[in-house]
């Protein structure tokens, strides 16, 4: 075979390629929202409620307004003349929710007035000078008490504080009405059970705590009637849609930009009041304005996650065959419904089929308002809660039956030959192969050795336990029928003059490394160097359309859109190349991209360079018949189904007998996210997810007192996992591609968060099992564990 001169390019998909984002980030050269400075920019500060529940009697803004350098002070009632109630993205009934409270406050931190001033310090001074008087109302804090007659209520028209009542799912439930039609099979299954384990469990409220707080810069240009909003958001296109609607503008009049974004974890999906207020006030004061959240504001006003109470019953035969599951779930959603609030807990019951062939499932969900910060998505968003409830219950069953928790799970796995598998909740699991994943995890962890190590430690009087969990989750959100924002993603691919490639993606990253993984895919597709590719994102004036990054959808949906657009551009490029090679009578379909050339497959001497063809496309003399000049194509990709990654996590926990302090001494994660583009980035995603899942199990909890006052409103009181709290994670994987997108990639962003939480709690329960303990509520506080030890006289 003939060869031509030039580099041979390695294939990059599947390689541990260093991130292209990093040089700017490690040198302090990236531009986050707070780094943006515009000429004449003014600063916002919010006066916020310091009580949980009350009627605003009066607001005195005179002292603030009189301060030199203060441009404007405006109350919620005044702003309501400009800004209506905020939109939500779910079909559930919701009370009006204004960006700034108009007459009543319903959680500590809810804004009541806004200051616009020349600098940030001054704006805060002025906000502090605003005097607000309230008629205080009783705070609603406990979600179960909130539903009782006689409880104070937050919203008119929502009796007993119920936002969503008796939303059913599972066996014999009509999915249209979410009400049971004939679910007698569930009761029958429980009636024939040899054993039923039942447990009330709390999946506690968490603060997402992206390290970059929220922030927004808004610039309304009066002469152009054009608004630009820079925001720390996961989804600039959704921001554009909603800000335009709130401002009475069309989307053609709004540009939304997500610059460098310092983490999201779900809490930067919602479009917040501050974003609408910044836009409205920029138009009002005819100047650009900036608002940057401080960490206490983040604890008080950025959406929280989780906060689900579950009453779980699991029925089985004595041989371990699971017969059915019942779950009654109460979601404490806080004071208002924001973008996806009411939808998130519906995912919990939906995913409680887990990896098991459950003959019957029944889940019932009630969502309740309380005087707390609203909840919305937090890494995993509904799935960690469901899998926690299920995997705790399965573990309790194993203990009850004295079975190995791995073997109990294996016995009930959905068999590989039953995929695609329809769950009792109506989902279709795309693909799965659970036993090899379990076997690999047991092998990597050394499960039998761990059991022996535990027993030996116990013999020495130490308190040691091992835990295992096996999860399945739903990723790659689409299709549009099940995602309120739309379930597609968009990408554009342009082969520029000179043969370099610019691509856009609507999957707006905030740490996921899409600039690297997407470039890897294009490098392989066109067989050109990585350096010749730029991936643009996060700016609606550059990225024509998009949905955003959440639900582990970047690769599975965004990556698929990219490959589709690249395919179109590549096909057209081959037509141009065929025209250039016309003396060889080459058909476009005979051509391939190879090492920077477009050549006849197997005949590199019949070729043109990538750059030659690109140049020809823009000055096509003669223009091939029937063709338009140029090489710029775009695609929308909508998957036909979600993807269902899965994995097995194994851990070991030791508890200090004297102090009750738990230590996570081993953490093994074997995940299956389908095909992998960049294993380095996948490892990073798993690590981060594990830390957050372990954080929930061991450390984190948003706490309110009986007056609705948050007592965890800084990093002094809210315990974030630190480096010394975590062991070195041991990772491995199996690969079960998905058929629902051309990449075979399933998504990995949330995996670590889902499996690790029940895994670690299972290990802690195992550690304290000799003391008669069968369940421990999260987080695994030393004091809580110490009490459990003491209740048994300190003796195992």
């Amino acid at each position: 075979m003939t060869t031509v001169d030039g580099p041979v390019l390695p294939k990059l998909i599947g390689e541990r390629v260093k991130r292209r984002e990093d040089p700017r980030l490690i040198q302090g050269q990236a531009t986050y929202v707070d780094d943006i400075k515009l000429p004449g920019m003014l600063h916002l500060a919010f006066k916020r409620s310091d009580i949980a529940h009350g009627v605003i009697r009066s607001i005195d803004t005179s002292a603030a307004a009189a301060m030199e350098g203060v441009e404007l002070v405006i109350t919620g009632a005044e702003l309501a003349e400009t800004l209506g109630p905020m939109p939500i993205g779910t079909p559930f009934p919701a009370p009006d929710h204004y960006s700034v409270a108009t007459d009543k406050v319903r959680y500590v931190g809810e804004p009541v007035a806004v200051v616009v001033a020349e600098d940030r310090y001054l704006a805060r001074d002025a906000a502090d000078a605003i005097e607000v008087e309230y008629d205080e109302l009783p705070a609603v804090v406990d979600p179960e008490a909130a539903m009782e007659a006689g409880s104070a209520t937050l919203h008119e028209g929502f009796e007993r504080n119920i936002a969503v009542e008796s939303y059913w799912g599972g066996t014999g439930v009509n999915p249209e009405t979410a009400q049971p039609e004939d679910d007698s099979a569930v009761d029958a299954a429980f009636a024939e059970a040899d054993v039923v384990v039942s447990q009330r469990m709390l999946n506690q409220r968490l603060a997402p705590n992206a390290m970059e707080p929220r922030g927004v810069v808004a610039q309304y240009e009066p002469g152009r009637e054009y608004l630009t909003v820079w925001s720390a958001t996961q989804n600039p296109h959704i921001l554009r849609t909603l800000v335009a609607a709130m401002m009475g503008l069309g989307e053609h009049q709004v540009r939304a930009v997500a610059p460098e974004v310092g983490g999201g974890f779900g809490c930067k999906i919602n479009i917040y009041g501050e974003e609408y207020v910044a836009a409205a006030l920029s138009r009002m004061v005819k100047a650009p304005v900036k608002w940057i959240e401080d960490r206490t504001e983040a604890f008080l006003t950025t959406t929280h996650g989780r906060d689900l109470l579950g009453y779980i019953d699991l029925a089985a035969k004595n041989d371990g065959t699971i017969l059915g599951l019942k779950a009654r779930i109460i979601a404490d959603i806080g004071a208002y419904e924001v973008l996806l609030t009411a939808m998130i807990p519906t995912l919990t019951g939906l995913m409680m089929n887990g990896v098991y062939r459950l003959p019957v499932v029944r889940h019932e969900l009630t969502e309740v308002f309380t005087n707390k910060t609203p909840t919305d998505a937090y890494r995993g968003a509904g799935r960690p809660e469901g899998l926690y409830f299920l995997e705790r219950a399965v573990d309790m069953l194993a203990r009850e039956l004295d079975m190995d928790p791995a073997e109990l799970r294996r016995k009930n796995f959905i068999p590989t030959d039953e995929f695609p598998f329809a769950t009792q909740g109506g989902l279709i699991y795309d693909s799965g192969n659970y036993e090899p994943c379990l076997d690999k995890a047991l092998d990597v962890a050394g499960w039998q050795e761990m059991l022996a190590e535990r027993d030996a430690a116990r013999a020495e009087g130490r308190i040691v336990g091992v835990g295992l969990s096996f999860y399945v989750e739903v990723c790659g959100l689409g299709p549009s029928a099940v995602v309120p924002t739309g379930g597609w993603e968009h990408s554009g691919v342009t082969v520029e003059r000179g043969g370099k490639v610019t691509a856009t993606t609507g999957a707006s990253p905030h740490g996921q490394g899409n600039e690297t993984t997407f470039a890897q895919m294009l490098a392989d597709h066109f067989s050109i160097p990585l350096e010749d590719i730029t991936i643009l994102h996060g700016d609606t004036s550059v990225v024509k359309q998009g949905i955003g990054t959440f639900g582990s959808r970047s690769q599975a949906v965004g990556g698929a859109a990219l490959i589709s657009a690249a395919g179109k551009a590549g096909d057209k490029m081959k037509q141009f190349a065929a025209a250039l090679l016309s003396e060889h009578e080459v058909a476009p379909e005979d051509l391939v991209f190879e090492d920077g050339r477009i050549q006849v497959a197997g005949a590199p001497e019949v070729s043109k360079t990538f750059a030659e063809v690109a140049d020809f496309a823009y000055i096509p003399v003669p223009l091939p018949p029937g063709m338009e000049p140029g090489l710029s194509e775009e695609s929308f990709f909508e998957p036909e189904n979600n993807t269902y990654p899965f994995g097995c996590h194994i851990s070991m926990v030791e508890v200090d007998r004297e102090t009750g302090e738990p230590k996570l001494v081993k953490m093994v994660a074997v995940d299956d996210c389908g095909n992998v583009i960049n294993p380095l980035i996948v490892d990073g995603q798993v690590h981060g997810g594990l830390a957050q899942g372990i954080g929930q199990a061991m450390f984190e909890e948003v706490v309110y007192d009986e007056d609705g006052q948050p007592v965890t409103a800084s990093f002094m009181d809210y315990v974030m996992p630190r480096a010394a709290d975590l062991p070195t994670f041991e990772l491995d994987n199996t690969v079960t591609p998905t058929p629902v997108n051309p990449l075979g990639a399933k998504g990995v962003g949330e995996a670590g968060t889902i499996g690790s939480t029940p895994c670690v709690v299972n290990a802690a329960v195992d550690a304290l099992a000799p003391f008669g303990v069968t369940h421990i509520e999260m987080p695994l506080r030393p004091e809580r564990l110490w009490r459990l030890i003491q209740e048994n006289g300190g003796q195992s």
Partner: protein
Amino acid sequence: MSESVPITVNVNGRERSAMVEARLLLVHYLRENLNLTGTHVGCDTSQCGACTVLVDGRSTKSCTVFAVQADGSEIQTIEGLADGDELHPLQDGFWEEHGLQCGYCTPGMIMSAANLLQDNPAPSEEEIREGISGNLCRCTGYQHIVNAIQHAAERMAQS
């Protein structure tokens, strides 16, 4: 508004003089007055370490220091860490080992690590984990950060 006070500091090798409000935080002086926006604010209460810089060679959380307290000091920020176009071994380590995702905590993490390696050029994993416990990262689970610092320590030992 409180009175202004004169300060002179050396930032990344360059002497800077300014009149600053007495209550101005060092981090805001760096970010707003000098446009050194690589130093970030993550919590305002000195728990997260995103604002870490070196003041006279010691890692310091610049969100809880007034600019006037730094008068007469030498300050090094993330922008001053590389030697011209050559990355500092820590920057290189973070890149090689995927020690960052969203990048927001990264400048502070790197500056803390710089102090750690000054004090202890060959730290164990446990010492690294203890050494960066004043810095929060929400993305990485810290493992690749530990690898990055080990990578840097090895490279610095060779040179």
